[in-house]
């Protein structure tokens, strides 16, 4: 591509700069495409206004009024232009129900969703690292077998069912933890486990395979031959090097994690963005659905970008040239 090359020359002409710029442009393209998909799938699959009124019999004037207020009387490309302009200035329109700016509604809920996402990642790592490392170190033994079974079962049940079961056991029967709400650290435990469990299954597999790969490398054998104790070698040499693919993977999984928060928030009555979206769906509040989904999608794309760029900075072996595709 010509544009990134020209920009890179302008910025100092390194290959790295060209790569960063190409990734940035690609990110913008992706965000643009996502906005296009969301905008048109909502507009083309039905008339938001008639769906909003599906409960009662509105007058013609009322419908016209709403259409004008929402800007739906303008041609569709003009609407999309307004929508895009709003996106750039972080203005996602106003809620049809409350009249509040969608961006404000999202910001109110952002903390809860981020807390849940980080809780989920923490749980996933707390489970996956020990399981994955043990499986790799004790390869072919019973420990490894159980580790692999654990990973497989981990990806085989729906996380919302795990959430219900956790509520049943820890909130209803044992009464140890609260089943819903957002007041204290205790409230965060069950939702985090629910969200992190599936990820931990996939992550444990990845930790195991990258550990196995690293443990066959020469520097690990060298460290072993120097007489360093086994666990010191495993943690200091093997694990540290196996961490890199794991972190990248976590970044890439951030999106499905955010998708997962929608369901987990629903089960635990967690006041996050996912719940905002689901409530908006039940109330046919299209600006909020649209804004919430785009917001989550953009967060995810940006996180991927950051991970990708830091990955190339951390590990100089990563090939920067090429087409930027896997």
């Amino acid at each position: 591509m010509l544009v990134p090359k020209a920009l890179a020359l302008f910025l100092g002409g390194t290959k790295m700069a060209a790569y960063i710029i190409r990734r940035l442009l690609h990110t913008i393209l992706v965000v643009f495409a996502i906005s296009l998909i969301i905008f048109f799938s909502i507009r083309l699959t039905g008339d938001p206004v008639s769906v909003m009124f599906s409960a009662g019999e509105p007058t013609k004037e009322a419908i016209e009024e709403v259409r004008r207020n929402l800007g739906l009387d303008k041609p569709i490309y003009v609407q999309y232009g307004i929508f895009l302009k709003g996106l750039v200035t972080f203005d996602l329109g106003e809620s049809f129900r409350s009249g509040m700016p969608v961006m404000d509604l999202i910001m109110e809920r952002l903390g809860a969703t981020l807390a849940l996402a980080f809780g989920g990642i923490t749980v996933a790592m707390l489970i996956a690292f020990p399981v994955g490392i043990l499986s790799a170190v004790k390869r072919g033994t019973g420990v490894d077998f159980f580790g692999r079974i654990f990973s497989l079962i981990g990806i085989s049940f729906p996380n919302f069912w795990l959430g219900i079961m956790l509520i049943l056991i820890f909130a209803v029967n044992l009464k140890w933890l609260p089943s819903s709400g957002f007041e204290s650290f205790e409230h965060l435990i069950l939702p985090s486990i629910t969200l992190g469990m599936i990820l931990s299954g996939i992550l444990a597999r990845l930790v195991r395979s990258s550990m196995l790969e690293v443990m066959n490398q020469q520097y690990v054998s060298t460290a072993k031959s120097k007489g360093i104790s086994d666990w010191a070698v495993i943690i200091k040499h093997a694990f540290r090097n196996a961490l890199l693919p794991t972190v990248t993977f976590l970044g890439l999984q951030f999106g499905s994690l955010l998708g997962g928060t929608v369901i987990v928030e629903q089960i635990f009555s967690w006041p996050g963005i996912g719940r905002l979206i689901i409530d908006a769906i039940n109330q046919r509040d299209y600006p909020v659905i649209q804004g919430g989904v785009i917001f989550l999608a953009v967060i995810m794309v940006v996180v991927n970008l950051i991970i990708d760029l830091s990955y190339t900075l951390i590990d100089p072996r990563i090939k920067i040239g090429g087409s930027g595709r896997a």
Partner: protein
Amino acid sequence: MTTLELEKTPQQQPVTAKKPFMKKIWNFIKKNPAGVIGIVLVVLSVSAALFAQWIAPFDPSKANLTSRLAPPSWADETGESVFFLGADQVGRDLLSRIIHGAKISLMVGFFGVIISMVIGTVLGLISGYFGKWLDDFIMRIADIQLAFPFMLFAIVIMSVLGTGIWKIIIILGLTYWVGFARLIRGEVISLKEQEYVQAAKAIGGTNFTIIRKHILPNVMSSILVLGTMYIAEFILLEASLTFLGLGVDPTIPSWGGMLADSRNYVTSAWWTATFPGVAIMLTVLGFNLLGDWLRDRFDPNMKL
């Protein structure tokens, strides 16, 4: 004649001939325990779906308020419950609903995979075989699709379209083709350089014949493995969407829908929340085990 034949059979097959066969099966089970469990689970769920009308002990949609939230028969102290897995909030038999629910899950799994498989295979073959701008174009679309989490996409579309099993199947098919396309593209690129493909080209084979005769048969095993694993994933996604009220019609018995119904009764009727989830887990585990086993059989190094 029939009696004669019946008598003849054991004579033609000496008693010892039976043993190696049983032994073969036993050896197969011993060698592939995980694969066998997978096959058994898949066969169970597929039979439940196919023969639901005949297997299910009760009508899955017949409400009966006297048996409202009746516990499983083996856990019922009063001994009144006739339902093996209990009854739901309007007194419908849970077991029958689970058996009928298998139809929805497997339909979504199979048809969703067929659609994504066909689209993904065609685009992957084109992308890998012809390369150049076609490849750039298709892979750029794939990148964008991958950047957009399915759940969010499905939530937007289903919230506008309303519930319906075919809507889910089509959405799954139209988003998950990317996995097939990328996998096949990668394999085609390396197959293209193989000598027999070059030879077929040299003797004047058309692109279509080369793809059909030399490339497609070699990527079939990967397609099959990925397809099996996607069935598992699609079943989970459908259950999640239905749980949110954005999947199949809530009046049709489905596992996700049953779990959504059970939410308000978790404290009073644990069985309504437990068994549909067990059904999902065993089915999905079955397809995952089967997929793992197929992969190890065909090509342990497959990047899946």
